[in-house]
């Protein structure tokens, strides 16, 4: 039934390729209704804007993770990369506003470099990305501890924190619009443009069937490496927003890699690659955050969040596997 719908529905508003966004939009709508019933205030513009701002980092990470997953790989290093970036930023800025912009640029370069290393090790040394990025995860965790003697030093300037914490005030209708949301919208637009470009199509083709892609002249290793770099860059932007939101923290990025992967899978992107859209992945992240908000309103312990994430991954992959075999 779904297959028929996917193939036939002339929904050109949001490009319906295989792995379309209709299912995730449905889930999102249902959750919004449930939240609206339980906590109507939540849907007031100020509260909703603050929720979107707070969710921006995980949505960005989901977008980054999308590029890696859709070409058939994994990036488990993003959580520890976020932590490392926040700790590095605090130490380098050391509460000096003048260093804000140089450090922001450095973080982006650092994110891209970690992505490049992940990509080259995976593609050139043929280490499975699961292992490569797990290794990178451990390396970054260890390096952060070693470098900071177990407690973060320095501090983030107010200028740096602005991106994750402040908002454009007094916007008509909406109230305050968090900078994080504006950053998110800009990055999301870039991501959508990128997926519609030749590179985006190549990326999906590589994930779908790397051999065919190779034979038709695609340099598979380069495409995949770029995907890792994009994920690293997304982690850098997420780190800037998260560091801004909560200040220096040793656990700023803890567990975010699983959150991002769950979101991507929930958004209809097939693990193993070849199917799914970046909009779906980002909506997946938003849905996941909304689900957690709903759980909070019902007084469910925060400890259950990881259980729910695990259940979603298993369920979504199982569904996707059944779908593939039906294809």
């Amino acid at each position, binding site marked *: 039934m*779904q297959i028929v719908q996917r193939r036939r529905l002339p929904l050109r508003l949001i490009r319906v390729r295989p792995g379309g966004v*209709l*299912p995730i939009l*449905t*889930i999102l709508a*249902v*959750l919004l209704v449930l939240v609206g019933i339980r*906590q109507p*205030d*939540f849907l007031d513009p*100020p*509260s909703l804007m*603050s929720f979107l701002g*707070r969710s921006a980092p995980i949505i960005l990470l989901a977008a980054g993770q999308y590029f890696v997953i859709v070409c058939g790989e994994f990036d488990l290093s993003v959580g520890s990369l976020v932590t490392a970036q926040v700790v590095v930023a605090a130490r380098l800025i050391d*509460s000096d506003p003048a260093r804000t912009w140089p450090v922001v640029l450095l973080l982006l370069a650092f994110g891209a470099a970690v992505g490049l290393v992940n990509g080259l090790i995976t593609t050139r040394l043929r280490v499975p990305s699961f292992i490569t990025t797990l290794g990178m995860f451990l390396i970054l965790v260890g390096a952060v501890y070693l470098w900071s*003697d*177990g*407690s973060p*030093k320095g*501090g983030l300037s107010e200028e740096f924190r602005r991106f994750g*914490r402040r908002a454009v005030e007094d916007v008509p209708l909406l109230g305050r619009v968090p900078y994080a949301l504006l950053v998110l919208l800009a990055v999301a637009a870039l991501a959508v443009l990128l997926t519609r470009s030749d590179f985006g199509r190549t990326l999906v083709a590589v994930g779908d069937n790397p051999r065919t892609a190779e034979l038709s002249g695609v340099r598979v290793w380069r495409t995949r490496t770029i995907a890792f770099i994009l994920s690293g860059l997304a982690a850098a932007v997420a780190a800037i927003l*998260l560091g801004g*939101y*909560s*200040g*220096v*923290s*040793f*656990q*700023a990025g*803890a567990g975010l890699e699983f959150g991002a992967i769950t979101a991507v899978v929930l958004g*209809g992107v097939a693990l193993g690659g070849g199917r799914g859209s970046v909009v779906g992945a980002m909506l997946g992240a938003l849905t996941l955050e909304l*689900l957690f*908000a*709903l*759980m*909070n*309103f*019902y*007084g*469910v*312990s*925060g400890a*259950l969040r990881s259980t*729910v994430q695990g*259940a*979603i991954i298993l*369920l*979504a992959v199982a*569904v996707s596997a*059944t*779908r593939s075999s039906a294809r």
Partner: protein
Amino acid sequence: MAALAAVTLLALTACATDEPAAGPSGSASAAGSGTGEQSKFFVQADYDAELALLDAAPTGPADKPWEQVLNPTMVDTAKFKKSGPHKICFSNAALNNPWRQVGFKTMQAEVEAQRSRISEFVHVDAEGKDQKQIADINDLLGKGCDALIVSPNTTATLTPAVEAACKAGLPVVVFDRGVNTKCPVTFINPIGGYGFGHVGAEFVSQRMKPGGKVLALRILPGVDVLETRWSAAKVAFDKAKVDVVGVEFTDGDPAKTKKIVDDYIQRYGTIDGLWMDAGAVAVAAVEAFQDAGKPVPPMNGEDQLDFLKIWKDKNLTAIAPTYPTYQWRTPIIAALRILDGQQVSNPWKLPQPTITQDNLDQYLDANMPPLHYAMCGCTDLPGYPQRWK
């Protein structure tokens, strides 16, 4: 199929949300006032003793609380008398948090201030590992130390190592966390966790509106110094009959703290009181209220400067019980007195001052780094303030 997945997922989450919704104050609450069962670590006699010490008048110079003693019981040290200068050795549990880093710098500065009497100061960092500290103490015994200072990593595991050091005949001084043996010449520490927890909880429950909602934030369960803080707060909250809507663990992480506090603000609309067992995440909690556009309720923090600064800037209703870092000066002073054959108190209970609105300005130094602890008693020491930056 995807639709099916969605339905199943919703069914699953619906199941998960139904049950706790029946008990409206959330999972952390079991007993009537929401504070739950009393901690296994709670000892009534210790609690009573600590609360009594809060009101005790210390002996010693008023301007040097690190030399003061509450209810002193002096012990003879004539047998350790020795001519100087001395070699003093220090086995340190760890340097892995800002409190210990500020404390250790204070101790180093004290050593420098006493340079004429100390020929050598040996410091070994056990990096938070019991086994390493046992080996460290053993190694130090063969290095000709005149006195040994120990800040134990854990109480029970380090006891035999400290006993072995006592047997070697040199004077042993233990501070901060204790050991289960009476063999050290003296054990130095401030009043303790019950006092800390009580001061914060009493302030919060008195200043908030009656019957209001309190959120309690704890670092992690199962650590004695933190369990005592919470168990004293629980007693105070139960007595004041406030509604403790949540007791949550933050892991000392600002990001997690901010999220938890934000969740509670979203869920309950307002929170009327905020208690925490350590000040490290106090600023994150304050920010959560600010960013949500809500007034910051009466709360407690600790003597870290980031909190004192935001307290002053935002005119908060706050209090800061302390676990003073000046206690790192006392072991050096004690060791030198013992080597002089002077009497010292055992136990050496240090006063545990509280920062209030009235004396806030005295402790707030805008030039010191945000993670510095104001109660370091270090302003008269060599290298201040540069050494602590």
